[in-house]
């Protein structure tokens, strides 16, 4: 079954109907905007509301908030992989793509992560059924994913492109969670998070590999199919480092002098000031 997007019937661009497009442009000259200003006017309103607003909700203890976030995301993630199994049955796989067993394997680990998180929340005296602010936010951030996975029109490869977004978020957020656990003195919890992180690394590597195969790319290091060894995902010329700090010209030069190592070999706290924080 086809794994690439349909070509040739796209009517969304102006080239699909040049004459009508011309008329569209002409109309904008005859009928100008009814009010002056630019897109920044929106920002003013957003800022005004934000300053008067109440926020998303009272934040519980940070660790509990983040545990709730991971639990919600793992449940949502499990549903995504369940939907991916249907894609596999409906569309079949492709050369280098996942087998049903591969998908089921990841799905099982997502279930296990959810169980682990639920237990961890209970052990800390929390309620795993409560929707925490971070959980609510995470579900809204990823709200488009189930839309893509449950759409009968999307094929296995397209669905994997949604899955990789979930896996990227998973990798990012499990790492964060482990750090929060450590900071809170929950060393055993942090250690257990480490096991989940290994699983998530494996998921991401596999999903990247499947997508590369589906797109006819070589699944070799450097093309995104493998996690870079140092997990550094920014290029040498990137304007920000992996912690989101702006890299100054000075630092970049310094980095080149030290053999091209990324300018983030040190943690943020070793820096004299965070003046460049974005």
């Amino acid at each position, binding site marked *: 079954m086809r794994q690439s997007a349909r070509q040739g019937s796209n009517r969304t661009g102006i080239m699909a109907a040049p004459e009508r497009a011309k008329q569209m442009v002409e109309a904008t000259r005859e009928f100008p905007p009814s009010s002056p200003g630019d897109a920044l006017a929106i920002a003013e309103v957003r800022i005004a*509301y934000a300053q*008067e*607003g*109440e926020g*998303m*909700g*009272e934040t519980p203890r940070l660790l509990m908030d983040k545990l709730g976030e991971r*639990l*919600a995301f793992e*449940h*949502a*993630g*499990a*549903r*995504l992989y*369940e939907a991916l*199994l249907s894609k596999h049955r409906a569309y079949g796989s492709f050369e280098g793509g996942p087998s*049903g*067993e591969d998908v*089921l*394997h990841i*799905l*099982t*680990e997502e*279930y*296990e*992560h*959810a*169980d*682990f998180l*639920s*237990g*961890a929340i209970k052990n800390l005296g929390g309620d*795993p*059924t*409560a*929707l*925490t*602010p971070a959980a*609510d*936010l995470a*579900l*809204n951030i990823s*709200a488009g994913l*189930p*839309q*893509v996975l*449950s*759409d*009968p*029109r999307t094929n296995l490869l397209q669905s994997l492109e949604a899955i990789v977004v979930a896996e990227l978020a998973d990798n990012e957020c499990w790492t964060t969670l482990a750090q929060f656990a450590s900071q809170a003195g929950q060393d055993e919890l942090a250690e*257990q998070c480490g*096991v*989940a992180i290994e*699983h998530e690394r494996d998921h991401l590597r596999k999903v990247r590999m499947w997508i590369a195969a589906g797109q006819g790319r070589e699944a070799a290091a450097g093309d995104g199919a493998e996690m870079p060894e140092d997990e550094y995902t920014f290029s040498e010329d990137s304007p920000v480092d992996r912690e989101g700090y702006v890299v100054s010209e000075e630092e970049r030069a310094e980095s080149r002098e030290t053999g091209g190592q990324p300018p983030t070999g040190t943690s943020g706290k070793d820096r004299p000031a965070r003046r460049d924080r974005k």
Partner: protein
Amino acid sequence: MAINLLRDSGVPLEQQRFTWRDLVQAPYNKLMDDAFTRVRVILMNGIESEALRFSHACARMNAPLQRALAQVRRIEQHQQTMVNWLNPADQDPLETTIGFEQVAIEVTASVAEKEPDPYLAQVFRFGLLEDFDHLYRYSALMDRLQGKDANALVQSYSDIVPGRPTVIEHRDPLDDLRKPYDRRRAAPLTKLHALTIMAGEHQTHDYYMTIGPMFADPVARQVYAEIASIEEQHVTQYESIIDPNETWLEKWLLHEATEVYNYWSCVESEENPRIRAIWERFLDYELGHVRFVARLFEETEGRDAAEVLPDRMPEPIRYTSHREFVRETLRRELTLSAAGTEFVDREQETEATRAYRDQMNSEGSPTETVAAGYVWRPGTELTDPAARVPATSSKSKRRAA
């Protein structure tokens, strides 16, 4: 707070003003506010929506009333906006749907419990069991589509279990019509009840018809299609309990009285002070509308408004869990159906209903599909390993913990 519909003047029409900024206030908090704040917001949006719907229909049939209707309608439009815009953006359409069904359960239960006319109380209980089932179906959809627990919205006030299964709620149109109350003999509360529930159900129908096609999932699209059809049946049912012999102005006056009754019920129960201030403001606006329409009614029909309006408000709608009442109704009336305007046991259903249902369900029922074997569990069905996709062929033995 004591309300006198015949004496309280409220805010005069000319002082009922808005700005765009005023219309768009901070929404309630999905995570922090009580579920009944959402329930009230959703119902009051429905009440205002009905105010506009009625006003437009009336204007199309009554040229002499058009100017007065237009004046009041513009205010109702802005009242509806302010109320509906209290729904927060992090509440997705399916989550709002859960809120709609909780309205249909808890508000209808409150009405059914207090309704003085035994036949109409039966009508409300009949509809209640059907909407109760919808909450369960949509909860299954939310869990199985998004991996989310509907109880985050329901807040454990309403049971998430099957009611009268949606698959058997489909009836012939003529079996959804009921007998109307008699406008000369019915208690004022009966009229307020009928308009309240009709308004809520009509808005529910319109909402499902709007958001149903926004889902990508074909099962979700089908579930909305099937339940929207039942909501249409409910609108047919609740519309038919209202005396069609009321005059247009009498109906208008009753609409305004229903709005007063509902805002007053909200004021009586709202915990969020910011939202309560909105209910109080609009209660005063609606009292102003009652005054305006009562004068028009008396001048036009030469009748005293006291013929239509009660001087004292009946008991307010109870915004609380009706779990026991609903369960008792489930136990007693689950197998009930309707034949014409009468309620009968399922064995006595009409041939027309059976034929219609068989036709509609001949390729399956989406609400059955979505909730196949669904048992609500705290924190989603996924907390039960038995509800997961079987891992028999998985080679994974690694554990996260």
